[in-house]
């Protein structure tokens, strides 16, 4: 049986084409994925991300536990409301999940992690928490989550939900959160646009969704969510990374909190030795301007990046509506650099593509 978010009836009412995603019935689009994509780049769109896992960690020892749990350093969170992106690793340095942790107060941190990894994550965190005195791991299935993203997302959210919200959130920098009544409002997102991620009681979700729609915020499905995050060069768990891949190999070096040297975290020893030897693979961006679409699992060969045949594999690929051509993230040997040429096997046909720096798109504009 598939799970339904509190917004399920709204999706049906608004013409959502529903698909199973990690056991949840979610809208893949509401008519046209490309129009939805463009609405987020040019105006404002909203996503139901209630399927994601919200976990509150409460108690005096939570910060201590997070120092051990997360590859990024939770001590970067000193201002209340500040958010941090991090991977959670196994002892081999493989990525168990990627997540955002919010610092609410000294006894309360909130983690938002993926839907497909919910049970594994909770189990892992609970297990680790046993070694700490005062840590309560509290799942929050009672909460829903709506992401409002796009250049006009903030203004339209204020128009829909009232000016009290403006007062508390207008001065929030990116990657912060504020609590306003029942609403937890964060300036985070997965699109490369400005906007909010709003965590709210499930029973208030349908009402809030409708108020946003009434102000012209368009409902957006998972299809456009994927092309938006791909243009923004954001990794997707299960595609660009998994338990067999370390952050060093997933283009996520920047999320590892190496300093201080004496902070022990799960996976640190493995990462240290991998760093010393040099990771054999990384993620590169490629762009293909010809006819045809780059897709996951297609093979890429980098002819001028080393002796012999140097091969990679597309981990995320698709059509970029903003660039009007195809783009992809490729797991490639570490020797491959932006600017080099490559060939992609698209359904048996070899086509020429180019290695580029990603992100591909930020704030509505091409980065290329």
């Amino acid at each position, binding site marked *: 049986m598939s799970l339904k978010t509190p917004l399920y009836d709204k999706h049906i009412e608004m013409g959502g084409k529903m698909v199973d995603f990690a056991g949840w019935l979610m809208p*893949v*689009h509401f008519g*046209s*994925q*490309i129009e939805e994509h463009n609405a987020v780049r040019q105006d404002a769109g909203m996503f139901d991300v209630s399927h994601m896992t919200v976990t509150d960690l409460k108690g005096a020892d939570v910060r201590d536990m997070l120092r051990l749990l997360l590859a990024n350093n939770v001590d970067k969170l000193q201002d209340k409301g500040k958010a941090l992106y991090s991977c959670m690793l196994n002892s081999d340095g493989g990525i168990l999940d990627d997540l955002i942790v919010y610092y609410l107060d000294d006894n309360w941190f909130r983690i938002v992690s993926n839907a497909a990894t919910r049970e594994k994550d909770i189990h892992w965190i609970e297990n680790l928490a046993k070694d700490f005195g005062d840590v309560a791991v509290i799942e929050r299935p009672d909460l829903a989550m709506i992401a409002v993203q796009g250049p006009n997302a903030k203004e339209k959210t204020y128009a829909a939900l009232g000016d009290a919200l403006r007062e508390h959130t207008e001065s929030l920098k990116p990657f912060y959160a504020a609590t306003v009544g029942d609403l937890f409002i964060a300036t985070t997102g997965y699109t490369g646009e400005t906007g909010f991620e709003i965590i709210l009681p499930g029973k208030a979700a349908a009402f809030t969704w409708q108020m946003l729609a009434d102000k012209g915020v368009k409902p957006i499905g998972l*299809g456009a969510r994927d*092309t938006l995050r791909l243009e923004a060069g954001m990794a997707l768990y299960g595609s660009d990374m998994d338990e067999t891949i370390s952050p060093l190999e997933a283009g996520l070096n920047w999320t590892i909190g190496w300093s201080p040297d004496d902070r022990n975290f799960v996976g640190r020893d493995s990462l240290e030795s991998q760093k010393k030897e040099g990771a054999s693979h990384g993620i590169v961006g490629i762009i293909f301007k010809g*006819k*045809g*679409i780059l*897709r996951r699992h297609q093979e890429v060969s980098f002819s001028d990046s080393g002796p012999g045949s140097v091969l990679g594999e597309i981990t995320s690929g*698709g*059509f970029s509506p903003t660039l009007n051509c195809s783009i992809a993230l490729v797991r490639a040997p570490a020797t491959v650099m932006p600017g080099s040429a490559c060939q992609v096997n698209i*359904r048996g046909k070899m086509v020429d593509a180019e290695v580029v720096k990603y992100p591909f798109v930020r704030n509505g504009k091409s980065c290329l």
Partner: protein
Amino acid sequence: MSDIPGELKYTKSHEWVRVNDDGSATIGITDHAQDLMGDMVYVELPEIGDSLETGKECAVVESVKAASDVYAPLAGEILEVNETISESPEVINQDPYVAGWMFRLQLSNNEALDALLDAKAYEEIINSTDQ
């Protein structure tokens, strides 16, 4: 509900066939197929003069979601292809049965038409796979 015009013939693989007054046949993909695939972003068409064999792949449509082969519903020679959909693949989404046609075929054998599905049979097939 998908649009399934009564005057057309269909295949299980979601192509439609219109028999023209001059005996040629125009072929495209159905409304149901375009709906399953989502926004079209790329179309690869056969070339004029190509000979098609029944059931063999003869074109490719790619949407934001997936790539799909188009199979020749009938054998014959390509007389004309729709360049409009090469430039603007979204026309297939907007108008799969008229502006979104893919190619026109000179049939090798008119009797082959009898093997195609009528609208009712095609509707039954898509209803049974929707369950």
